[in-house]
């Protein structure tokens, strides 16, 4: 009996290949049962997200690992009508490599955005599906439960999730260090560009509620406001909102500065020290750099945000070794635990020529 993993991810497969092999939630139980009905497969979990599809399986004691992997490949090929190029994108892992891979996946170490935490929930969900479908057993239960432990430890004991890695996330991180709770924050969008919409949505995802959109073309402002649940105002009215708003995201195509110290100064006294955070996403810049000198005003332009995002990525990459050390300790721990718990099977397996699911290398 061996652990195997058969799958692809964003690094090995193109979007075109990835979209071919996607399991919808409705079809997952059926797929799980089909995998388990394959000759030589005893337990199975299917993890299917937009960036990866992986089948974790336990082979039967009488089955050769290569044969089991071949059968899985054949099943996938038939089910999704895959061609040779699609199949070339699949990777195959076995024994400790399977455990190591799953632990890394659950910890976000194998994700497109290093250290992202959404995958942890997706692994949990995949496991819960398999449990409900009755396709997990003693070994995969132990493996997945351990992966949740690893995921939590990596998140809490290392800094892999620290340091935002995209322009929107850096904006959110800075805003949280200025205001703390974003639920009380009001946002003003000057210009209705795509990047400002995305940044505003990032802030919304952290609780920011009131969004005001101002654009030279009022119709566009209305469209965007409707799309994000905000309120549109005319372009000549945005400076009247300065005493109320907390975050301004500017992305107009203006060739000159739209926000200057003189525009802000009258409102600052009324704000009574309440901070104002300005995010300048346009080139040439909308916000005059001298604004940064004003009391309680924080400005970040596109360059600064991109630099911070790069620094965040580097910060996370620097944590990789620490995380993998932790993962490796857990792989060893898992094998030691199972070796202790399955000692009788191990002896019998040895006699009968079987391979222990975990301890063999």
């Amino acid at each position, binding site marked *: 009996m061996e652990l195997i993993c058969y799958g692809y991810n964003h690094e090995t497969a193109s979007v075109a290949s990835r979209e071919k092999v996607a399991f919808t939630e409705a079809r997952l139980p059926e797929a799980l049962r089909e995998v388990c009905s394959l000759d030589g497969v005893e337990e199975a979990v299917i993890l299917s997200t937009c960036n990866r599809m992986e089948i974790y399986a336990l082979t039967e004691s009488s089955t050769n690992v290569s044969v089991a992997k071949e059968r899985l490949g054949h099943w996938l090929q038939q089910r999704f009508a895959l061609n040779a190029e699609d199949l070339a994108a699949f990777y195959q892992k076995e024994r400790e490599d399977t455990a190591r891979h799953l632990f890394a996946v659950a910890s976000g170490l194998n994700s497109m955005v290093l250290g992202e935490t959404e995958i942890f929930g997706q692994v949990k969900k995949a496991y819960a599906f398999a449990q409900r479908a009755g396709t997990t057993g003693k070994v995969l239960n132990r493996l997945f439960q351990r992966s949740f432990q690893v995921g939590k430890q990596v998140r809490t004991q290392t800094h892999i999730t620290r340091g935002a890695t995209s322009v929107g996330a850096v904006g959110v991180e800075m805003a949280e260090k200025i205001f*703390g709770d974003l639920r009380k924050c009001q946002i003003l969008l000057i210009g209705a560009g795509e990047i400002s919409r995305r940044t505003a949505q990032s802030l919304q995802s952290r609780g920011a509620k009131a969004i005001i959109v101002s654009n030279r073309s009022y119709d566009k402002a209305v469209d965007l406001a409707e799309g994000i649940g905000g309120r549109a105002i005319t372009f000549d009215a945005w400076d009247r909102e300065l005493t109320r708003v907390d975050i301004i995201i500017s992305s107009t195509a203006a060739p000159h500065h739209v926000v200057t110290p003189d525009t802000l100064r009258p409102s600052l006294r009324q704000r009574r*020290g309440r901070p104002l955070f300005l995010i300048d996403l346009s080139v040439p810049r909308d916000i005059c750099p001298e604004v940064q000198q004003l*009391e309680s005003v924080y400005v970040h332009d596109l360059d600064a945000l991109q630099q911070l995002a790069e620094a965040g990525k580097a910060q996370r990459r620097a944590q990789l070794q620490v995380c993998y050390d932790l993962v490796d300790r857990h792989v060893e721990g898992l094998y030691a635990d199972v070796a202790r718990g399955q000692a009788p099977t191990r002896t019998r397996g040895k006699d009968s020529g079987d391979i222990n699911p975990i301890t063999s290398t």
Partner: protein
Amino acid sequence: MDFALLVASTVCYAVACGVALVGLRHQVRPPTWARIGTMALGFGFLCGFLYLRGQAHGRCPLTTGFEVLIFVSWAIGLLYFVVGPGFRLSLLGFFAAPLIVLFQGVGLFLYAPAEPILGPNGKPLPPDYWVEMHAALSLVAYGAFALAFVAGVMFLLQDRHLRSGNRGQLFYQLPPVHYLHQAIERLLWLGFILFSTGILAAFMMERLPEAHKLAAIGFVWLIYGLIILHKLIRGSGARRLASAAVFAFLFPVLSFWFL
């Protein structure tokens, strides 16, 4: 016994500093018991110390410069537990603890055993409650000013991080500038109100404090009064308020020479 409690309290606060420092250096958040527990233990020992001194004197233990220093440390600790959780100000203890250790460290050198305060007839002098109220309120106000100083330093550091985009370990540990600004403003108000009440209590005392003491108290009151007035009338910005809270604390510290 009271000396042992003072030493124990100082050691606890020093450990709290050390724990936070180690956490910062190794980029890990120390466990709650290590961060808060050591501070709470230090505060508990200090309460015991003040209780024993109060028993020995038969009055509020504010009879010497040494006791005044220790009382201010106690007030900083007390306000830390009131203000810190209220504003979710993580790391306030890390910045407040060195100040407490400094005050108590100096206090240890100035230590003198407590004795009953005797009148000219050799009998214990009955306490003047207005004196005690004046001293206690003024020193708790000093505690509030000290914590405003600490929050001010934290604000200025975080403000610098936010402007420069430097996201080091401290950036993640320090609280948001908006919370710090609110804490500074409220601590200054709290300190000013307590200090003003303490001054009013001084005028109710049987004998007014000496002129040089009154001048020192009056000067501190004026400085903080001006800061608050400026904030009220001109709506001064957060950075200016934080700088003022840091700078102004020099005056309560200097006033110790006169008290």
